[in-house]
């Protein structure tokens, strides 16, 4: 049983929310909160030691914010998956977080089922993506096209999915259009997120070889 448990860490400055999330995670049955932090600095120190499966990360934190926190942690623990927890679905912040190395995002006010299912999805290699995030990614790589280096190295299929999502189609509608399952779509989206923060990976390599920028 212990092996199938999804280990979770929570970074959240507000006590009510932190405690609530902790309860919801712990009562899900297959999840276990193994650490919770009130600020980014502590998280950067502790999480590489704990190596959880998933980190629920608030964006607005005292000290370094959630996005910078992910940017620092991702190279240290590349296997850890980061899920942005946010009050509002503000595209700018979510996109910045994804570019910094986050793998998924969720609204804090989501009901407990949605929250836990999202954690499970992410752990299984899936990621949610709204049409606006999709548009942002499309626009970003359109801008970056002239420079090979800036390209996110997306496959044609990934680009196709992105464009359909960007038009406003749901996962199911998109899946129907290109004749694949809903689960596969989520896997593609996960890969898109991974490729999105390709720079972070470069940073990771640089860090590994002691050539930090």
């Amino acid at each position, binding site marked *: 049983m212990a092996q199938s448990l999804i280990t979770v860490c929570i970074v959240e400055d507000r006590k009510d929310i932190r405690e609530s999330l902790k309860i919801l995670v712990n009562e899900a049955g297959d999840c276990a909160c193994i650490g919770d932090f009130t600020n980014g600095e502590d998280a950067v120190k502790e999480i590489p030691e704990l190596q959880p499966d998933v980190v629920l990360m608030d964006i607005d934190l005292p000290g370094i914010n959630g996005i910078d926190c992910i940017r620092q942690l991702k190279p240290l623990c590349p296997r850890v998956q980061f899920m942005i927890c946010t*009050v509002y*679905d503000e595209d700018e912040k979510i996109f910045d977080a994804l570019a910094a190395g986050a793998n998924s995002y969720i609204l*804090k006010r989501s009901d407990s089922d949605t929250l836990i299912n999202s954690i499970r999805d992410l752990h299984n290699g899936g990621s949610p993506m709204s049409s606006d995030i999709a548009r942002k990614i499309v626009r970003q790589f359109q801008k970056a096209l002239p420079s090979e280096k800036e390209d996110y190295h997306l496959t044609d299929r990934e680009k196709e999915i992105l464009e359909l999502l960007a038009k406003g189609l749901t996962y199911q509608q998109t899946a129907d259009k290109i004749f694949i399952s809903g689960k596969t779509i989520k896997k593609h989206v996960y890969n898109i997120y991974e490729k999105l923060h390709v720079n972070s990976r470069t940073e990771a390599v640089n860090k590994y070889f002691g050539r930090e920028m």
Partner: protein
Amino acid sequence: MLKGLFILSALFYSSTTGTAQTALSRDSLNYFISAAKKDNTGVQQLYRVSAAYLQINSDSALYFSTQAMQLAEQISYDSGYFLGLKHKADALLALGQIDKVYELGENALTYADKLNKPNYKGRAYFTMAIARQYQYKILLAIDLYTKALPYFEEAKAKPNLARVYQNIANLFYEQKAFDKGMQYANKAYALNAALKDTVKMLECRGLTGNLLYGSKKFDAANEVYTDILRSKTYKLLNPATQLIFAINMGSLHYDLEKYDSALHWFLQATALKNKFQLDFFTRQLFYKTTSTYIKLGSIAKAGQLLHADGNFNSEEDDRTDFYETWSEYYTATGNYAKANEWLIKLREYQDSLITDETAASFLQMDTIMAQSEKQRLLNQQELSIQSLQKKAIEKNKTIALLSIGAIALLTMGFIFYLFFKKKEQLKNKSIALLNKENEFIAVKSSLEGQLQERSRISKEIHDELGSSLTSISLLTEVLKKRIDTNINPEINKISDTSADMVDKMNEIIWALNTSNDTVNSLVAYIRKFTNNFLQVANIELEFLETDIPENKALEGTVRRNIYLTVKEAVNNIVKHSGAKKVAVNVSAAHGLHIDITDDGKGIDKGNMNSFGNGLKNMKKRMEDIGGKFSIENNNGTIIKLSY
């Protein structure tokens, strides 16, 4: 440069200082005196001896004239006494004892008072006047001459009268009261003409020339001088007078910038000077000649002269010309440093002149200056009267000219008026612009203040209320886990409501946030809303956008009203239409157009009440912001918004 030149021209009637002085012993003098008879002839003899000695030994001349006068007084030979005035004065002047000359005149006046003979009184005053003239006390001299005049008139002593007129004319010349001087010169000339004294007439003509020259009537002066030089009597004038005419002629040409002629006359003067061994005006003539060479560009010649002359001649009493000429020479050679050196020397010299004595004479000069300034004003007035007379003669011409001038002036005035009016207008305009700008700045700053306030409020709502509501939402989720939800459906409501509130608040924040005041932002928000909303309702969405500008501004209220209208429309579709597919078409090519098409059952016109309020609301929202709203049935519903 030739300051003091002309006054001397009037004075040289008195003898020049002697050349070789041969001393006579006291014994030989006494012998002459004792030998003289103690009667009228003795006195006359002594005067003749005095006159003879004047050129040879002025001391002896003085001695003899003094003795003669004493003798005349003793024997009451009155005319003999007054005859002595000229002889003794000549001797004293030759010796430079000018104060004694005045004393001599005073004593003579006392003597004359007893006799009541006008001619003697006149002579006494004349002698005093000569003394003052030699002391350069011009006003006092004129006063004394004027006192002498009535006595000479009374005595009908015409030659004396003529001499006095001539001397007064000369003094007025010195005072630069040229017109007054001219009056006296004319009187003197008339008297001399009556006396048929051709030499004196010529002298008076010379004086007239000088006066014209002084009043800058150069051409008239030139004419007079030329006349004098051409006259037969010119050669009868004594060489000194001729020398002075030559110098004046040269100076006149120098002032007229006819340097060739000037040089001719200066050289002529030099020749005269050398021929008759005249040793006055030597320095002035030398400097004047040198300066003329410089003006003619014969700088080498000028240099030669100056260097040959050597350093300052100690006999010279006025060094001004000396320094000035050297400075002029160095300026001409381009050696400005040297020229400046000489100028500095000149200034130092002039400063050194200011002693008590000179200060006193400055005071006198001030009086003279004041008087001459008055005269100058009088002259000016006279000139203006003359010009007025001329104007009267040329009245017709002037009227024509004046009218042309008047028209020109009017035109110019009008142009100026237009110019200044325009300027004034521009000024007013710029002031108005400035005021407007200030108003604009005020409005802008108040707007900025509003915007800042909006941002502050939205940030606080965003940060504080947002997370508080989120807490409620999450806490109810926890509560739901702990309590059986079926028993407590209200808990679900709390959860839903708080989640809903966060959404609504998000909308308010979006509307408040000024950074969202663009068309682009509105379209993105509508897209996200429709996408999320229809996804939940499982209705397919086709969202098309064309010509959306990147940063076109859109006011907050407009943005909010359009968004709420779209929200209402989409809400209605989900609630009432039963549609499977919705197409949202946004175009911002001209204004902003949003078409929302569904494939539902369309609007039942007969059953408008159920959502009539919603429709009215949408219409009102669009009209409030000056936009349009329409709805029609066409295999479903088409709602058209435009702004």
